[in-house]
């Protein structure tokens, strides 16, 4: 299963490199990547499409891992960084840094925003063993709306020249993304650390009391997983803005196939999330070419009906 998903991730990147305003054959893609051809198509592949595909792979993986961890922490398969306002918190932090003229601190500010949202959402969950979907979603809606209002506030007082660039944080867009390879390294690091706690996380999904009596150091593990989920969300948001529903749909779909054992679910979700966002972004930039859709529009259009379907089934 993990092997098949790894192959799918590689294939999705290959397709992303081949498809676009200039169609390039896979053979030429391979030549552009590994050969030393310096013609136009090679520079399109290496300088435009590859960084974007890597960013999509990393962001999709980070969001899927963040979603898996939040679902374990809240013991609810509807938890997701976008739905619960973590993405909004991260976007708020990054926008605030930009507005105050500290563009260099956008990433740490995004992390602070995601951490604040995490504290807010999970702080309300203290001492509870499982959240009802209703309570979870109400909290998420309110927290997300709060951050949405803050973002609107910042947009309305921002200088006109900055607004277009700031909208990116709201929508989720990979067309202006940079630092994709750093985000990929971050994904590998987050996943590696999360894997250290994978067995504990599987037990935590059965409730804190059960995990504790089976020998899990609940305080240490929950703290680590909170930090990882917030960090993964913050990094994903600083690279691509608020891309929604990957963190919800991907772990859910993967879980249907391989179960909830986090030792397998976490790496599988990372690969599937990465592959899915690469495919979604390739569609976003080729569906209405030469115009480009922000990928967040596409994931939200697909994600909302899926979310409603899952909600209806769980009720």
């Amino acid at each position: 299963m993990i092997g098949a998903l790894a192959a799918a991730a590689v294939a999705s990147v290959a397709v992303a490199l081949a498809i676009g305003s200039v169609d390039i054959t896979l053979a030429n893609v391979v030549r552009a990547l590994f050969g030393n051809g310096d013609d136009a198509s090679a520079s399109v592949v290496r300088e435009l499409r590859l960084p974007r595909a890597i960013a999509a792979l990393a962001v999709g993986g980070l969001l899927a891992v963040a979603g898996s961890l939040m679902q374990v922490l809240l013991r609810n398969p509807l938890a997701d960084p976008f739905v619960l306002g973590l993405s909004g918190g991260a976007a708020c932090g990054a926008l605030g840094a930009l507005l105050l003229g500290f563009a260099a601190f956008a990433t740490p500010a995004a992390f602070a925003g995601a951490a604040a949202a995490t504290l807010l959402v999970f702080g309300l969950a203290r001492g509870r063993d499982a959240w009802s979907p209703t309570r979870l979603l109400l909290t998420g809606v309110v927290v997300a709306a709060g951050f949405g209002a803050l973002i609107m506030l910042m947009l309305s007082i921002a200088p006109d020249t900055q607004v277009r660039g700031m909208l990116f944080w709201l929508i989720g867009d990979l067309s202006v993304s940079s630092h994709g390879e750093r985000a990929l390294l971050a994904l590998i690091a987050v996943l590696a650390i999360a894997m250290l706690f994978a067995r504990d996380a599987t037990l935590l999904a059965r409730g804190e009391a059960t995990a504790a009596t089976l020998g899990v150091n609940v305080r240490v593990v929950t703290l680590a997983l909170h930090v990882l989920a917030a960090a993964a969300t913050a990094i994903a948001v600083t690279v691509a803005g608020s891309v929604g529903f990957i963190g919800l749909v991907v772990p859910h779909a993967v879980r249907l196939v391989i179960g909830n054992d986090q030792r397998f679910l976490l790496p599988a979700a990372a690969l599937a999330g990465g592959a899915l966002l690469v495919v979604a972004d390739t569609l976003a930039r080729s569906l209405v070419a030469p115009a480009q859709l922000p990928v967040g529009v596409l994931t939200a259009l697909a994600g909302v009906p899926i979310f409603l379907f899952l909600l209806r089934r769980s009720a």
Partner: protein
Amino acid sequence: MILTVENVTLAVAGRTLCSALSFAVDAGECWVIVGPNGVGKTTLLATLAGLRAPASGAIGIEGRAMREWTPRERALRVGLLPQDTVDAFPDTALEIAIAGRHPHVARWRAESPDDVAAARTALADVDCAGLAERNVQTLSGGERRRVALAMLLAQDPAIMLLDEPTNHLDVAHEVRVLDLLARRASTGQRAIVMSIHDLTLAARHASHALLFGFEGVSAGPASEMLTARNLSALYRQALVAVPHAGGTAFLPA
């Protein structure tokens, strides 16, 4: 003594549930905790499981203070079936039973075939062998309860704490589960401590009883503790003991 409770005070949100509570449980004993709703039975079991610290006093496991054990060492010795379990995800019954093997599996190892066999045996013990591959979310309340119990049986700790283990069970499975637990105590040399509301079943299976009331707690051999007089006072409800061939039934007077 495998489990010792010395001079323990339990308090929740400023309310003292009991004070100066002392008793000791030995391997081979099957204890029942009986008492009215809201008196603190669940809090006591959570405290014995190490999930919360007592307001004062000491709890010892195999002669060592509770907090001196690492979480994993403790999990090999003390296990708890909570009153309610969380089935938020579509795990199979077998996956849940295998989770009970967690403290037996070294940190960087996968579960061995022996662990899987132990989990399957535990499922069979609670009459769930045929449900092993079923998604727990599709099971009935009683079936889920038995699967949760299988997790504790697979964990197989020296001290098994159970919070109302017979919740949701039909009468046949109530008897089967309590027979199994009493047998684990007597022939398996485990210590069983469970809260239970069915006084007839409590009297049928217990070797010792702890009467947990709003006015105080008393503990001793089941035959001395579980009398119509004691239980009527405990629940403030007149009860009569009706002897029958299999033991004593307690009925409201």
